[in-house]
């Protein structure tokens, strides 16, 4: 059976609500199904005490979810757009991330903050951002960004069961994507990347919707005789450097692709690590594909012009390999 990304997220939440009575959902409109329908029907099935609407008060609901997580609940908080996580930042950075450490290990914060990011369909500058780099800078947080429905299903369940504060970033362009439930009962571990497509000539490291873009690029590169290995990071914090290293040792070339701006992005961190850890393995500079340094524009022509696509990956790889 085929599920959309949205349907499979709902299935994962439904199953976790049924499996563990401490799991609770909260957020703006979630009892009504959520702005994107991810939580549709869950309040009816699991009760309005466990699937709760909140006021539009990101600061307070993030604090509320954190406080509840300290006291035995496993809240899954929906922040409708990552752009609004700016209003959650005080709590996430100063409290949620640090509570375990500051308390000398007395407490843990089993909280998942589901949020939705990325540009599509003219959502414009305040509903399209990719802000994940801010969060990988904070010790204590976990940042997850799935690339397919099957990945989202397993990673969301793993995140809920992890017992750490997790920022779970869903890309709006993936919401309509269809896929099967993953086979086998095993859930993907948090902190482990996967090879989305094996290859030998260049390692392309991506996450979230950019994995799909990289897979398209790999098809085109194959027509030019270039075999690209695509790594789907799945988790941005922690980074799975072992999987990256194993690939770069094989290909000797690396490119990181993300939708966020390059400046100070996740790619900068990965490039620095490859540069310092794997310098002798490299046959060329570590490349980065990302957004130019501008806000996301509204008009479709402008949005297209700004967003990095598979052509950018293909061009960067071909120039470097001179093929």
């Amino acid at each position, binding site marked *: 059976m085929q599920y959309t990304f949205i349907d499979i997220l709902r299935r994962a939440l439904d199953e976790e609500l049924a499996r563990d009575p401490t799991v*609770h959902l909260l957020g703006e409109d979630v009892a009504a199904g959520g702005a994107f329908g991810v939580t549709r029907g869950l309040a009816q099935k699991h009760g309005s*005490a*466990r699937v*709760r609407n*909140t*006021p539009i*008060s990101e*600061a*307070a*609901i*993030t*604090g*509320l*979810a*954190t*406080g*509840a*997580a*300290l*006291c*035995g*609940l496993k*809240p899954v908080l929906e922040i409708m757009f990552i752009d609004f996580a700016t209003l959650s930042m*005080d*709590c996430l950075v*100063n*409290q949620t991330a640090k*509570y*375990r*450490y*500051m*308390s*000398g*290990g*007395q*407490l*843990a914060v089993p909280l998942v903050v589901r949020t939705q990011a990325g540009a599509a369909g003219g959502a414009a500058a305040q509903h399209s951002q990719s802000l994940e780099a801010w969060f990988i800078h904070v*010790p*204590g947080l*976990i940042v997850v960004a799935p690339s397919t429905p099957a990945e989202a299903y397993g990673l969301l369940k793993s995140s809920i069961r*992890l*017992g*750490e504060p997790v920022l779970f970033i869903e890309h709006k362009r993936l919401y309509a994507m269809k896929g099967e439930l993953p086979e086998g009962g095993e859930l993907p*571990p*948090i*902190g482990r990347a996967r090879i989305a497509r094996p290859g030998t000539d260049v390692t392309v490291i991506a996450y979230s919707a950019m994995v799909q873009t990289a897979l398209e690029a790999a098809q085109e590169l194959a027509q030019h005789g270039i075999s690209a290995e695509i790594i789907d990071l799945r988790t941005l*914090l*922690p*980074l799975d*450097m072992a999987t990256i290293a194993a690939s770069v040792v094989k290909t000797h070339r690396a490119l990181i692709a993300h939708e966020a701006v390059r400046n100070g992005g996740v790619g900068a961190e990965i490039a620095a*690590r490859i540069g310092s850890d794997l310098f002798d393995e490299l046959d060329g500079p570590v490349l980065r594909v990302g957004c130019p340094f501008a806000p996301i524009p509204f008009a479709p022509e402008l949005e297209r012009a700004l967003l990095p696509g598979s052509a950018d990956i293909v061009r960067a790889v071909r120039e470097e390999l001179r093929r």
Partner: protein
Amino acid sequence: MTDPTLADWKRMYGALWRIRLFEAQVQRLAAAGEIPGFPHLSTGQEAVAVGVCSQLEREDLLFTSHRGHGHVLAKGSDLQATFAEILGRQTGLCRGRGGSMHLVDVANGVLGATGVVAGNLALAAGAAWAAQAQGGKNISVVFFGDGATGAGVLHETLNLAALWRLPVLFVCENNGVAEFTSREEHSKVKYESSFAAPYDIAAKTIDGNDLPTVWAAAHEAIETLRRGMGPYLLECMTFRMAGHYVGDSQRYRSKEDLAEIREKCPIERLKRHLLARGIEPEELDAISDLGKNDVLQAVERARAAPRPDPATVMNDVYRTPALAAIPG
């Protein structure tokens, strides 16, 4: 809980002294450079801490602000472990990771202080939500200063707590000054309790330096919460006898201000009550002497306690062992 007996009042008199003397030691050792960071003292506000916290059960959940030593001690946390944390020792409540502004003592229901003004209000509501969801009778209490009214999250949290009828007691210590800025300069609203009415939250403004008044008001508020009647905002008018932090010269305060503050000292006031009820001055002196003895002993033991092992600095960033090796 029934009305306090004379023995209860004497115990509370001792509790006031313990906090006062504990903080005097914090002040002394901070000035001597033995305490890292910048501790904030609650000297002059002890009646609020004792009046509220002495009525809490161990499983009730306490959140406080950066000025929270008194609340933590009044809830029953160990003098020595609390002082050791303020000194940054391995035997401290948080093994030296938290310090004065991040005291946490889970076994005693102290879920923590915070260095961010208004930072714990929503967390306290969340703890109350968990208590409500688990069907417990326990409540959540959060202390904050009048400076927190400037933060939007206070208003968001009041709304949410009212909507969900959460068993959370908001205790505002209105000491008339936010850091270095007077109430008149930082807010047009005279009493914080006025923020409760629009949300239909029960509220009261009381004299926070008179322990019997605080006790009675807190008693009523806690009873309301335990009956599931939703949140309560208790505003305690009080005075910060100390500066904002240890070493603050308080140039922004007049001599008359400071003299008046000493006149309203909550310990002196309870002493007057107890003397009027026929307690001998010698007995009261014995209580404060005992408190002093306990505090000094705890302080000396805490000072002798081992410092944290630098090799443990990466412990407890994550609970999951496999995640512990994230390179900086």
